[in-house]
C-alpha cells in the first residue's frame, strides 16, 4: 500500500457506466507491471489458465485499483493487501483458491556485520517490533499517513504506544544503524517504526530516503551505505532470484530477520455488489469471463419495504443519503439502547431486531447474570423499583423511536435507518411520557454495562442533573456514543440550555430536526444552537412503528435523534474498533454543510459510513490504559467490568487480583469485557501484560456489594418527551 504515487481515493460520486450495458466486460485494473509480475498476468496464465491481457485497464499509479472500481473503469482490480480501502465494507478481496499469489511479509533486512556486532539484542528488538505488526495494523498506519500525518510520527508513535519506543534506560556503544526506506510512504513509516524501536533499546539509528525502490535498496546494502531496510519477503525473493531469501541476501552481506505477520501482497478486489451480480468470489471464477464471453454488471438490490415510499427521510432525495449507505452497512452486530417509554417488542417490524441478554433466564425471578436486574432479557424497566421488567410501551414514543433506528428490512411496513441493528429497550418513561433524571442516569449505565455502543435519548429534563452528566461520562469511558434530541421549543439552546442536549461532553451529540421533502430546512418546532447543537436530521412527518402494532407519523427532534443514532449504528457496524468520540468526530466531519444554526450541518449517512470504514481513532495510537468500569460482589462471586483504552496491540494477557492475590489470568480480548470471579474481596486490580510478561498498564477499584440496579427509579427531576 502507498507504493510509488499510490492512490487511495474514496470517490463520493458514482460515475455511470450505463453505456457499457450492451457489451459488458470484466475488466482488470492494474499497473503496467502486471504483465511481468508473477502475482498478476503471468500467474493468472500459469496457475488459472486465464489471460486478462485483453481486459487490462492499465493504471499509471500502482495502487489506484480501488478507485478504478469506484469510477466504474473496471470490475476487478489489483490491490495491495495493506491498502486501507480493502477494509471498506463494499470491497471484496477475491479468494486465491489455487494459491497463486506468493506471500509478501514485511521483514527487516539487516547487514550481517551489524548483527554480529550487536549480537542477539538487535535481533530481539527488531523481532519484537515486527511481531506487533499485522496487516490490519499496517492498514491503520497507512490510513494515518493518508489522513495527513508524518510517517516519522506515525511509525514512532506505534512503537511508543506499544512500549518499544521512548527514551532508553541506557545507550549502547557501537556504530550508528542507518535505515533506508524505499521511496513510498508505507516503507518510510516502517523505517521510522524500526528506528524508534531500536532507539528505545539504546541503539543509535537514523533514517534516510533511498530515492529509489527495491533495486536501490539492494545496491545500497551491497555498497555498505545502509545497515537495514524494511523489505517485502516474497517480492524481494523474486527480485533476488533463487528459492531462499537468506541465501539471496547473503550475497549482498545481509540477512532477513523474523517475518512480520503483516503482508503487503498483491490481491484482486471487486465491489461486493458487482461480484455478487457476476457470481465471483474467487480467482478461478474469473475463468468464466476471461476464457469466453464477458459477463454483466449488476447493482445491489435496494431495500424495499411496503411503506418505504412514505418514508421521505430514507428516500433517494433526502439529504440523509441512506440508500448508498445501505450498500456498505446495515448495522449488523450493533446494539442501540433506546432510553424511552418502552417498546412493542412483538411488532412485526421490530421483533426481528430486539436485543436479547442471553445471560438471563426469562421469567425465573432471578438475576441470573448478576448485573443487578432480574429477568432483563430484552432490556430493563426503570419506571418502577419493582424487580420485574415490563418493557411494554403504554405511550408509543419509544416504539416509534425504535422503528426509526432499526425497523427490519423484511418487505413489510417501514424500514429503519439501521435495519439489522438490535434495539435494547431501556424504559424510563411511563404511559404519560413522564420519568425522572435518576432513571435516565441508571438507564444510561445499564446500556453501557450491557454492551450498547449507541444510546438514544429522545427526551428532555426540566433541569440539569449531575447524575445524568456522570452517567454520560461513564458512557464515554466505555466508548459509547450518546445521541440526544435538541428539544422542541423552537429556541436557541446556546442561550436557553436544554438538558441533556446541552451537556458538554465529547461523546454527546445534540440533534435538531429538519422538514420534508429533502430535509434542507429546519423544522419550525426544532431547537437549535451553533455551539450546542451539532447536527440536523429528518424529524418532521416521520413514519415509523406504532405501539398498537401498526404505523404512525410523528414529528419532533425525538425523531431526528434516532435518525442519527441509526447512522451511528451503520458506522459502528462498518468499523467495530471505533468508539463514541470517534463516531461523533466522523459524523461531524462528514456532515453536509448547511446554513442552519447548528455547528456541523446535515447528517450524511453515506459519507459517514465511508469515513468510518477506514477510520483510525487518535486514541488507538496512544499507550494502553486500563480502567475498571465497575466491580460488584454478591454471595461469593465478584463481577468485574474492564475497559482497555489506547493501543492494545502489545497486550497479550490480563491478570486480575483480589486484595493483591492473583485470581484470574486471561488472554487479550475485545474491550470492554466482564470477568466473573468465584471469590470475593475488597479491592480488585488488573494488569495488562505484553508477550514478555512486562506490565503495560494497570488499574484498580474498590469492590462494592451488588445492589438493585433500580436505585435511581423515581428519583431526580422530571423528564418527558
Amino acid at each position, binding site marked *: 500500500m502507498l507504493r510509488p504515487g499510490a492512490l*487511495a481515493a474514496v470517490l463520493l460520486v458514482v460515475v455511470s457506466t450505463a453505456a457499457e450495458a450492451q457489451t459488458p466486460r470484466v475488466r482488470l485494473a492494474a499497473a503496467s507491471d502486471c504483465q511481468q509480475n508473477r502475482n498478476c498476468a503471468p500467474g493468472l496464465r500459469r496457475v488459472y489458465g486465464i489471460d486478462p491481457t485483453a481486459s487490462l485497464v492499465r493504471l499509471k499509479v500502482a495502487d489506484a485499483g480501488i478507485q478504478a472500481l469506484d469510477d466504474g473503469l473496471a470490475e476487478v482490480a489489483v490491490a495491495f493487501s495493506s491498502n486501507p480501502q480493502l477494509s471498506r465494507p463494499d470491497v471484496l478481496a477475491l479468494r486465491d483458491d489455487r494459491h497463486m499469489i506468493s506471500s509478501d511479509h514485511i521483514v527487516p533486512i539487516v547487514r550481517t556485520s551489524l548483527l554480529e556486532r550487536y549480537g542477539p539484542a538487535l535481533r530481539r528488538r527488531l523481532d519484537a517490533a515486527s511481531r506487533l505488526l499485522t496487516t490490519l495494523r499496517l492498514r491503520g498506519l497507512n490510513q494515518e499517513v493518508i489522513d*495527513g500525518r*508524518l510517517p516519522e*510520527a506515525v511509525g*514512532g508513535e506505534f512503537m511508543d504506544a506499544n512500549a518499544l519506543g521512548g527514551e532508553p534506560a541506557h545507550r549502547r556503544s557501537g556504530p550508528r544503524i542507518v535505515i533506508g526506506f524505499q521511496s513510498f510512504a508505507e516503507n518510510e513509516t516502517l523505517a521510522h517504526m524500526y528506528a524508534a524501536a531500536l532507539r528505545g533499546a539504546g541503539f543509535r539509528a537514523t533514517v534516510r530516503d533511498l530515492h529509489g525502490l527495491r533495486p536501490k535498496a539492494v545496491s545500497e546494502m551491497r555498497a555498505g551505505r545502509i545497515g537495514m531496510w524494511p523489505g517485502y519477503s516474497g517480492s524481494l525473493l523474486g527480485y533476488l532470484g533463487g528459492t531462499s531469501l537468506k541465501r539471496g541476501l547473503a550475497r549482498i552481506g545481509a540477512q532477513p530477520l523474523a517475518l512480520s505477520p503483516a503482508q503487503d501482497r498483491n490481491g484482486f478486489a471487486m465491489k461486493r455488489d458487482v461480484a455478487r451480480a457476476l457470481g465471483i468470489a474467487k480467482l478461478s471464477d474469473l475463468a468464466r469471463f476471461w476464457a469466453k464471453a464477458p459477463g454483466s454488471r449488476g447493482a445491489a438490490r435496494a431495500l424495499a419495504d411496503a411503506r418505504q415510499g412514505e418514508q421521505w427521510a430514507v428516500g433517494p432525495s433526502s439529504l440523509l443519503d441512506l440508500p448508498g449507505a445501505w450498500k456498505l452497512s446495515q448495522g449488523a452486530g450493533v446494539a442501540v439502547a433506546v432510553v424511552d417509554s418502552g417498546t412493542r417488542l412483538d411488532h412485526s417490524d421490530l421483533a426481528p431486531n430486539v436485543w436479547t441478554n442471553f445471560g438471563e433466564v426469562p421469567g425465573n425471578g432471578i438475576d441470573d447474570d448478576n448485573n443487578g436486574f432480574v429477568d432483563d432479557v430484552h432490556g430493563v424497566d426503570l419506571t418502577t423499583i419493582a424487580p420485574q421488567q415490563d418493557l411494554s410501551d403504554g405511550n408509543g414514543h419509544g416504539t416509534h423511536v425504535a422503528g426509526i433506528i432499526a425497523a427490519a428490512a423484511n418487505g413489510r411496513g417501514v424500514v429503519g435507518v439501521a435495519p439489522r441493528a438490535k434495539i435494547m429497550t431501556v424504559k424510563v418513561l411511563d404511559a404519560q411520557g413522564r420519568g425522572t433524571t435518576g432513571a435516565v442516569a441508571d438507564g444510561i449505565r445499564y446500556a453501557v454495562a450491557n454492551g450498547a455502543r449507541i444510546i438514544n435519548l429522545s427526551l428532555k429534563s426540566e433541569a*440539569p442533573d449531575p447524575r445524568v452528566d456522570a452517567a454520560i461520562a461513564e458512557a464515554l469511558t466505555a466508548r459509547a456514543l450518546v445521541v440526544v434530541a435538541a428539544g422542541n421549543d423552537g429556541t436557541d439552546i446556546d442561550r436557553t440550555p436544554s438538558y441533556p442536549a446541552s*451537556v458538554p461532553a465529547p461523546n454527546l451529540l445534540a440533534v435538531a430536526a429538519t422538514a420534508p421533502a429533502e430535509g434542507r430546512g429546519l423544522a419550525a418546532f426544532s431547537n437549535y444552537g451553533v455551539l450546542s447543537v451539532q447536527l440536523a436530521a429528518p424529524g418532521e412527518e416521520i413514519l415509523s412503528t406504532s405501539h398498537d402494532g401498526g404505523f404512525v407519523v410523528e414529528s419532533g427532534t425525538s425523531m431526528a435523534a434516532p435518525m442519527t443514532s441509526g447512522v451511528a449504528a451503520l458506522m459502528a457496524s462498518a468499523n467495530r474498533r471505533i468508539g463514541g468520540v470517534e463516531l461523533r468526530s466522523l459524523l461531524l466531519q462528514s456532515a453536509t*454543510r448547511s446554513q442552519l444554526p447548528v455547528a456541523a450541518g446535515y447528517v450524511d449517512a453515506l459519507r459517514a459510513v465511508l469515513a468510518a470504514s477506514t477510520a483510525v481513532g487518535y486514541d488507538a495510537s*496512544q499507550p494502553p490504559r486500563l480502567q475498571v468500569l465497575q466491580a460488584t460482589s454478591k454471595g461469593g462471586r465478584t463481577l468485574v467490568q474492564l475497559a482497555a483504552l489506547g493501543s492494545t496491540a502489545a497486550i497479550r494477557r490480563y491478570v486480575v487480583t483480589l486484595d493483591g492475590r492473583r485470581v484470574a489470568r486471561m488472554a487479550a480480548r475485545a474491550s470492554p469485557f466482564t470477568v466473573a470471579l468465584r471469590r470475593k474481596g475488597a479491592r480488585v486490580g488488573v494488569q495488562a501484560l505484553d508477550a514478555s510478561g512486562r506490565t503495560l498498564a494497570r488499574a484498580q477499584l474498590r469492590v462494592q456489594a451488588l445492589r438493585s440496579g433500580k436505585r435511581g427509579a423515581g428519583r431526580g427531576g422530571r423528564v418527558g418527551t
Partner: protein
Amino acid sequence: MRWAAALAAIAALAGAAPAHAAPTITMSGSVVTRALVADLAYFYRHAVRDPPRFALAGGVSATGIADAERGVVSAGMVVRGPLPGDPADLVFTRLALSGVCLVTNLANPVPAMTRAEVQDIVAGRVTSWSQIPGSTRTDAIVPIGLAPGAGTWQVFQVSFVDVGTPLAYAPITLATDLQARDYIEQTPAAFGYLDLSMTGAVHAMRYEGVGCTRAAIRSGAYPAARPLGVVTRGRPRGALARFLRWATTSPVARRVIATRYLPV
C-alpha cells in the same frame, strides 16, 4: 454544574487516569489541523520531561470552536482565522500558514488563470481545455473537488468563487487533499485545488498573476492563504500553554511544521 460535567467528561476522555498521572490536553476540530497537532504532540512528548497526554478528536473548524467555547475540550483545532460571528472570548493561536493552489496535471502545465476563467469553469461556461489559454489539451476539463465543509473546499469557495457565480459544474468529489492530489496526478485533464503542501507532484498555476508559493503566501500577496491553529476560551493555560509555546517557538516544531506548511 456545566463546568462540573465538562471536567468529568474531560477526565473520562483521558481514560480517567489516576490523580498523579500527567495532565491531558483535549482538542477537537479540523482534521487538517489535527494531523499537524498529532505530529507535534508526538515530537513534544519526546522533547520534554513528564509530557502531557493528548486526546485529539476530529470534526471541522466550527465544531472545534463550539467544543472549545463550551468547555468540552481544552482547545479547538481550526483551519481558518477568527470570523465576526465567533464567540468573543476565543483566543486564536496560529501554528502554521498555508495556502490553496489551483492545480493541473504535470502534463498540462497551464501557466495561469484569472478570476474570470475560474468563474467560467465553476459556472459550467467553460468545459474544455481548448477554451483555456496556455493549455496544450483540447479535451474536456475534469474538475476535481473536495467534500463540502473540508477546509480546502471552504478556502476555494471563499477565495476563488464569487458569491454570484452559479455552481453549475459537477466536480468529482474526494474526501481529502491527499486523495485529490493523487487523482489529479493520475488524470491528465484534471483541474482542481489543493493545499500548498500537496502540490509536489502536480502543477500549481499562478492566479491573477501571483504564484502559489511560500514566499507569496508569507508576504500576503497570494489571496488564498489560510492559517492552521487552535482556539481556546481565554488565553491558553497550564500544560496547553506550554505545549503551544513549544509548538510556536521550538526548532523541532518548526521543522515538523515546515514539512508541509509555513511556520508562523
